[in-house]
């Protein structure tokens, strides 16, 4: 039975259900056991499954990921947490040089089914070190899935699918969605494909590619544009690596125009790859340049409220981008 719950409750429910279903699933990270996590994503797990399966780790992202990798080699399916994307630095090597390449370097002899949950994104006053997006570093490297769900429904279904997937997965959760994103979510466990983008709103006049918190901002803008006579198709990527090229390219082939919206800084954000792919695969269908509405190329996100507002993409900025594209 479905009920309306928040993004964070969806994540919490997915964790509860997968841990119940499969005793190999275990959790480790900072402040997530007794504390239940900064945002309470792991609330109740410690109480239900105990310290053996829900471990408050020492403050060291490197060993959090490496311990998960090691445990996966003896049959566990660990779900380590990186508290904020901004603090993933110590774990970049464990994630990209170890986890993402383990299958490859052993020619399939070892596999590494871990799901790394990471909280990302700005717009909550977190400042320079509690707001970042660094999906690019990871999406650049083959061998690890990079996911960024935007709805409560996807958050639950994709997290369950990720835990069951044999590949290492980075599961990026946008902190602004935790309590604002709500959807009908079935009580029972279910999975959402890790290979498919979602067409959130079909449309004829342009395609808007986006993901994460921006997906909701774009949806609002699209409705507004509809009133102004522009019918936008909104594609929520959901997976940042590998990308669902098929859905993306087909949509733009149909609408002939494409706007990319992301919160990340412009240069080498996910939008860069999207634009390059479309140029390669839908060039003859393009009636206008592919445009990007993104964070500016400044360190994300300066603290003071006017600076944060300047950084963040909002509905007005998206509308301006859509108007510009439509007018081209």
């Amino acid at each position, binding site marked *: 039975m479905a009920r309306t719950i928040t993004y964070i409750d969806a994540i919490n429910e997915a964790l509860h259900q997968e841990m119940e279903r499969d005793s190999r699933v275990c959790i480790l990270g*900072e*402040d997530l*056991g*007794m*504390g*239940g996590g*900064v945002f309470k994503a792991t609330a109740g797990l410690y109480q239900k499954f105990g310290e053996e399966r829900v*471990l*408050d*780790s*020492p*403050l*060291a*992202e*490197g060993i959090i990921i490496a311990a998960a990798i090691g445990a996966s080699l003896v049959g566990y399916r660990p779900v380590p947490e990186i508290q*904020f994307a*901004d*603090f993933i*630095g*110590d774990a970049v090597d464990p994630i990209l040089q170890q986890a993402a390449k383990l299958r490859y370097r052993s020619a399939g002899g070892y596999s590494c089914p871990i799901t790394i949950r990471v909280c990302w994104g700005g717009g909550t*006053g*977190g*400042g*320079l*070190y*509690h707001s970042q997006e660094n999906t690019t570093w990871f999406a650049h490297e083959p061998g690890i899935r990079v996911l960024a769900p935007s709805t409560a429904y996807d958050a639950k279904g994709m997290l369950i699918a990720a835990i069951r997937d044999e590949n290492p997965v980075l599961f990026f959760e946008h902190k602004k969605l935790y309590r604002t994103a709500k959807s009908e979510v079935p009580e029972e466990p279910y999975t959402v494909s890790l290979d498919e983008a979602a067409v959130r709103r079909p449309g004829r006049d342009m395609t808007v590619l986006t993901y994460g918190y921006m997906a909701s901002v774009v949806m609002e803008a699209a409705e507004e544009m509809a009133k102004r006579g522009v019918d936008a198709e909104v594609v929520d990527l959901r997976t940042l690596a590998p990308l669902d090229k098929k859905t993306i390219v087909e949509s733009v082939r149909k609408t002939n125009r494409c706007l990319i919206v992301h919160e990340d800084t412009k240069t080498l954000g996910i939008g860069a790859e999207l634009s390059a792919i479309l140029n390669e695969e839908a060039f003859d269908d393009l009636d206008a340049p592919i445009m990007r509405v993104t964070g*500016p*190329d*400044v*360190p994300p996100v*300066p*603290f*003071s*409220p*006017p*600076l*944060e*507002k*300047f*950084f963040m993409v909002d509905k007005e900025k998206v509308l301006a981008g859509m108007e510009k594209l439509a007018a081209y």
Partner: protein
Amino acid sequence: MATKVNRATAVGDAPASRHSPELLLGLYRMMVKCRMCDEKARILFKQGKYAGNFYSNVGQEGGEVGAAFSLREDDWVAPSHRDWTSCIVKGAPLKACFAQLYGKTDSPDRGKSTPAHMGYPELHIITPASTIAAQLMIGTGVAWGLKRQAKDSVVVSFCGDGATSIGWFHEALNFAGVHRLPMLYVVQNNLWAESVPLRLQTALTDLSDRAKGHGITGVSVDGNDILAVYDAATKAIARARAGQGPTVLECKTYRWYGHSEIDPAKYRMPEEVAEWKKKDPIPRFEKYLADRKLLSDQIKKQVRDEITREIDEAVEFAEKSPYPAPEEALEHIWA
């Protein structure tokens, strides 16, 4: 500020057991100031006066003041998230400190960094980043530079118990050990890293033993005994100045409130909190001073009144200070 004079003269020449009355009152005054500023910062946050978050140091003032009080102007401080008040000890004007909370243009970083991450270039306070232990590493680099310049300045760097688990903490200590750098690593062991208790953080009992893994000096003291901290710190600083290398100084202490202002800290037993509140470093030092006839109720009141006035002025100043223009977001990226 009278304490400035004290700081310059009281240190080094006075044996630890004979602290001058001026020094003792200076320490006292500074502890009270840190406490009151911190409590004010908490209230302002609860009142929604500024965005972001705040990491209270209340309860830990013994370590914060004791370790940094004797520093000279040419010494450096490398604070972490819970050390906003260390800027005050190093001499930062309260107006700047409160403007920092508000993210206003009169903060040293014009609102770029969060309330917790205050730096002050003129006072050699390194603007912190959130990354745990980064300040220790950069501070160690500063110490390396100072040593190579044959200066006798030192660097004091603060961190918590949790920070001693991350690899970079050890890289810093190891490097400082190899080069016998003029560093003092103050570990404020408050028993918790967010909700993670010490037993899940390390197999050690004394975090000063971290030093043993790098062949450097480690000392553990009661962090709520400001004189114990002060004595250990001044000794370590003197050794550092004399080229005798770095020290890890563990201050055993406790944070009274949640990890940050949004943490109700339900993971801790109320008894534990109550127990530690009894060990409050301020009344303890007040008793010490009163026993020596150095402190009366009148002086206490006078100290608090003066600080209250200073804080009120600073808050008013911060509130009036303008926010940066939105486009300032584009500044200060490239040289």
